[in-house]
């Protein structure tokens, strides 16, 4: 099926102003929010930039890594420390991890005792510790003391980490999902331990994404398009989906599409969720999986020209996706009022639920569907600005949207109307300050 396009007239697209932030000299892969108006960007050039999202001002340029950045995590101050300070932790391919102070832009500390590249970082605010995942999993405290570490897990290393209740973490290691439990040993509060609790081997291929939905659920996705919903407490499989890509379950889709499917195009690139649904970026498409109904309620098989790299759910039922094709698209999850007599719609918005798909299940789903609302993803706008793959984006609410890309640029997309009135406000403030408001007679 061909990609859905939207014309040049995009009434619902609020982003009518953009700022290009230049600074990086290589692919920008990570954007991380520090606070309401600041974010950090990092990428293959090993430099971290701090930006003001309001003005686009470059606040700091952090140099310290000699290789590309592999992971970045904010470590905002907890009530434990006296002074409020915003920190970020960065890991790089030079096998170091650096702590940065975002306010001063200075390097606080550097750890370089790793045997392998740290591929993921997770901060457990509750415990005031942070974890680094490489070929092994290490637990650190705020002062960068190594509290404990696991044995060597795999050469490939931990690809994703997610915090689970009861001091547990789930680590994606290859095809396996390993649950670890952190415990302070009885001897003393500073004596930490990390124990492997369970190994889950349900995935057929490498786990590519791991996301926590709520305290009770987390979701994993793999390279061949499996999606498994797990119970966060007892680590059991609640539901699973595969064959996202399998169009054979859809009677109205031509079979030749199936032939062209490559593993790459079925990979679950990114997962995000709200309370109700899990949104999965699979290949070029976007799928909405309802946790209650345990089925895909809406999908967009060809949301982009190329792999979708990142998706995010906005509060207002909107969904933003970015892709290797360099575009960012804004979708809206809409409910379709369907008359019972009407045939099932086809085409772009083929709504199809599928369980462990077989024809029977389909039929059942179809029947159920007649009574339940039908959803579809409507394209409401696209943002074209990057000339290369858009790696990631950060949504700042009304402040706008920051996107980073392989073309070394970060673009801030803003609501032109809002910015205009903000400028007016600034203007009149400045007028008042300068005393120009007084009539000069």
């Amino acid at each position: 099926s061909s990609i859905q396009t939207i014309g040049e007239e995009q009434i619902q697209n609020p982003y009518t102003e953009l700022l290009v932030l230049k600074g990086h000299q290589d692919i920008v892969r990570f954007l991380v929010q520090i606070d309401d108006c600041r974010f950090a960007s990092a990428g293959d050039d090993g430099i971290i930039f701090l930006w003001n999202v309001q003005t686009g001002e470059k606040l700091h340029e952090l140099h310290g890594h000699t290789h590309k950045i592999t992971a970045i995590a904010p470590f905002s101050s907890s009530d434990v420390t006296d002074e409020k300070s915003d920190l970020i932790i960065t890991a790089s391919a030079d096998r170091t991890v650096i702590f940065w102070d975002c306010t001063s832009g200075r390097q606080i500390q550097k750890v370089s005792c790793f045997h392998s590249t740290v591929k993921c970082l997770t901060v457990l605010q509750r415990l005031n510790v942070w974890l680094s995942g490489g070929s092994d999993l290490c637990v650190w405290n705020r002062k960068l003391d190594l509290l404990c570490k696991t044995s060597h897990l795999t050469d490939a290393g931990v690809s994703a980490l997610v915090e689970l209740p009861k001091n547990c973490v789930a680590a994606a290691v290859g095809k396996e999902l390993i649950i670890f439990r952190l415990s302070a040993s009885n001897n003393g509060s500073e004596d930490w331990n990390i124990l492997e609790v369970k190994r889950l081997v349900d995935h057929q291929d490498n786990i590519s994404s791991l996301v926590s939905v709520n305290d009770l659920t987390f979701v994993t996705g793999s390279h061949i398009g499996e999606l498994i919903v797990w119970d966060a407490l007892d680590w059991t499989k609640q539901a699973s989906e595969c064959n996202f890509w399998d169009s054979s379950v859809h009677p109205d889709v031509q079979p030749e599409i199936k032939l062209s499917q490559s593993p790459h195009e079925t990979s679950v690139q990114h997962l995000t969720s709200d309370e109700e649904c899990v949104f999965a970026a699979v290949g070029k498409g976007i799928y909405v999986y309802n946790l209650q109904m345990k089925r895909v309620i809406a999908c967009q098989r060809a949301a982009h020209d190329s792999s979708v790299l990142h998706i995010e759910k906005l509060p207002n039922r909107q969904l933003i996706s970015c892709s290797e094709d360099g575009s960012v698209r804004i979708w809206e999850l809409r409910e379709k009022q369907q008359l019972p007599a009407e045939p099932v719609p086809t085409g772009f918005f083929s709504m199809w639920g599928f369980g462990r798909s077989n024809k029977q299940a389909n039929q059942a789903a179809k029947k159920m569907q007649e009574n339940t609302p039908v959803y579809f993803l409507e394209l409401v706008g696209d943002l074209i600005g990057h000339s290369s793959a858009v790696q990631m984006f950060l949504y700042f609410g009304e402040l706008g949207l920051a996107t980073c890309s392989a073309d070394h640029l970060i673009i801030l997309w803003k609501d032109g109307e809002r910015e205009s009135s903000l400028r007016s406000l600034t203007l009149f403030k400045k007028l008042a300050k300068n005393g120009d408001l007084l009539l000069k007679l």
Partner: protein
Amino acid sequence: MISAPDVVAFTREEELEDDLYREPPLPEEYSVPLFPFAGQGANPWAKVAGSKFTRDFILISEFSEQVGPQPLLTIPDDAKVSGTFDLNYFSLRIMSVDYQASFVGHPPGSAYPKLNFVEDSKVVLGDSKEGAFAYVHHLTLYDLEARGFVRPFCMAYISADEHKIMQQFQELSTEFSKASECLKTGNRKAFANELEKKLKDLDYTRTVLHNETEQQKKANDKGYYTTQAIEKANELASVEKSIIEHQDLLRQIRSYPYRKLKDSEFHPYEPQCALDRADVGSDQDPAASEPGETHLYTHVPSYTPKLIKAKSAKCFDKKLKTLEELCDVYFFTQTLDQLHHIERTFRGDVCYLLTEQISRALLKQQSVTNFLFEDVSFLDEKPPEKQYRGCQGLGQEAIDEKCSEESLAPKVVISLGSYKSSVECVPIKMEQEMDDSEEPKMSESVMSEQQENLDYLDADIKGSISSGESIEVLGTEKSGSGLTKSESQASLPVIPSPQAGRSKVGSRRTVSEDSIEVLSTCPSESLIPEDFKASYPSAINEEPYVDDDEGGLRFTPRANPGVDDGQDDVSKQESLVQVDAACCIGKESPNFLEPLPELGQKPCEEDGVVRIPPQPYRPGEQGLRGGFPSHDGLSAGLLPYELDSRYLTGSREVSKSSLDECSDSTSYISSAASTCSDRTPSPARLGSAAGERHRKRAGQNALRFIRQYPFAHPAIYSLLSGRTLVVLGEDENMVKKLVTALSIFVPNCGVYAKPVKHWVTSTLHLVDFQKWKLIGLQRAVSPAGVNVLHALGRYSRYLSILDADSKTLRCPLYKGTVVARLADHRTQIKRGSTYYMHVQSILTQLCSKAFLFTFCHHLHLPISETEPEESVVNRRMNFLKLQLGLANEDIKIVQYLAELLKLHYIQEPGQGGNPLLRFDYVPSFLYKI
């Protein structure tokens, strides 16, 4: 009453066609007389047909003690310029002004010769027979060998346009003072050197004489002195006296700069650039060539003294030093540079100069909006005197002070009122009886004549009776410049009340009995409502000429309509001059109050910064609308572009002859100074000549574009609304031409360069659209070219694409009205520069709308806290639509301009600010020819 048959007769078509040129002649009083000199092919505004030179030039003359007045050089140094103009004769005229009693030599009661540091004098002379009017700047240079140690020189700016000289008097005076100061500084240095050498010579001579005397004494054992010995002793004594005298002179010349430093008006000449020393001739002593007055009097060691003969050579035998020798080569070159600068600055028509000055001054005040469409770089230009690298230095404080003053008072301030009080009138020959008897007759006949005609006759009369010489000194440097700052301020009404203060004091003098007319020093400059003017058209036409023709010396100051004030001013001069009371009253009548555009005028007055510029006394040339004399009456309600086109169609025929050679000159009207080839406007005021040429070319290209492309409107709309327009084409020249044409519509984003890129061959990125709003792009067939096109497709929402090869345009729809006025393809405007100005005027209107929109508080912010955002939005749209009368897409233009204004205003001076790209999600359409 018109009866029905009459009406029918005039509406019958066939008759109308036939009788178009055979209608019964108009009554005599309504007919427009033919231009009397049309046969000569001259343009009708050329008042002085007899001017023998082709353009304004600068003449340096000397009153040589050997041969009398003689011209030394002209600038530009081109024989064609002065043409048949008799330089020798004119030198005689300008040098024959005994402008100041500058006694140099032995003053009574003084033992030694005293150097008198004379101030320069500045005079305006007119010679209507020659058709020449001149600003004459007299100065004296010191020469040890000259009589009284002084050599009188003068520099004259010669123009055929008396008004130009009068209008630009202050500027000319300032500029020439700089040149003069430069010359004099060099001269003092050279003079001091010369004195030192002479002193050495004298010292040496004394030693030699002393030795000889001693020898004689020894040889002479007799009790008496031989005649030879007495002679030697006398000689020795005279040498010693001479030494003392010269030492005294040296002391005087050395003390000069220090004395002068106290004077804030004095700008010592201080060259900074060490490289310039290379200019100094090789024959010069290295130490002597050290520029700068501080090093002027250093010891010159390498000089070998000569024996001085008791009897110097006869006055006529010796060869006088050239100006170059007098002033030191370095300073001489500097002076020439300055004079060339002056020549360039004042080149062109006075209307043009004035308009330029006025618009510059007005623009300067529009600090909030002027960056949008104007080239503001020239506004920031330092005042010329600062720019002139020579004139900085010792008196830095004084200069700063002066500069700040100058920046407060822009060029338009021609406070001629200042020298009203400092005027000295020197009537050498008064032949008023003759004039008085003759002129009333003339004026009567002239009264009913048309404007230009009258003008002409007027000049003719002047020329015919030119005979003797009368010289008028308008102001010496001391009095003139000293008073400028204080008295002019005082005499000018700062905030004129509508009825009283609008007109400015003007003293107008005519010495019309002969060829040297001294012209109105302060013509009427005032403003009145337009209707006043319209109701007294004849008065406007006639009064000044009555005044002019009646001759006699006359001061007619007009402080305001309150006659008494004016009269008070002149009362002391009335003993000298005969005042025609009737004329005074006539001049004070509101008819002479000149309307000026309200927009610019008011704020200026209130700031006390821009005062009304002095205006030529011909009403047609008055004020800002000086450019359109023939449409004075009509112009009241016309929009600028209508005026333009009407005007151009009307005048095209007449000036056909000059059309080609000055086809692109800005000032289309030739006035008295119609030195046709010389219409190039003064580059100094515009930043650069290139900039001016660029405007003309851009205007011309834009006209062509508008006529050629039916889709010019949406293209221009794209530019005005901030959507980047890409001109795509294979041929670089064609693309560049189009870009140049369209560049005049591109609003600036800041005070820096225009966001225009003429030629790009690489792929465009988003960043380029932030930076450039108009891009010329190469269409290539190579793979890279495919990428380029691909990028265009990708970013098409940010772009309008004008394909120069296939003549298509892809851009959003435009349904507004502003651009239609801006770019009417049926426009009558023929010339690039005119069209450029037309565009400027429309864009200025847009700017003012944008300004209003931007700075209306309630349009952007809620009046009360509780007011919802929607009502503000509604108010905003209503304002744009109803108050500003904008339709459809025009709103977007103003919104975009407003956004630029906001950004410009809130931008902190230090930081560059991120360029942002605003865009709309609007569909584009493809236009084809």
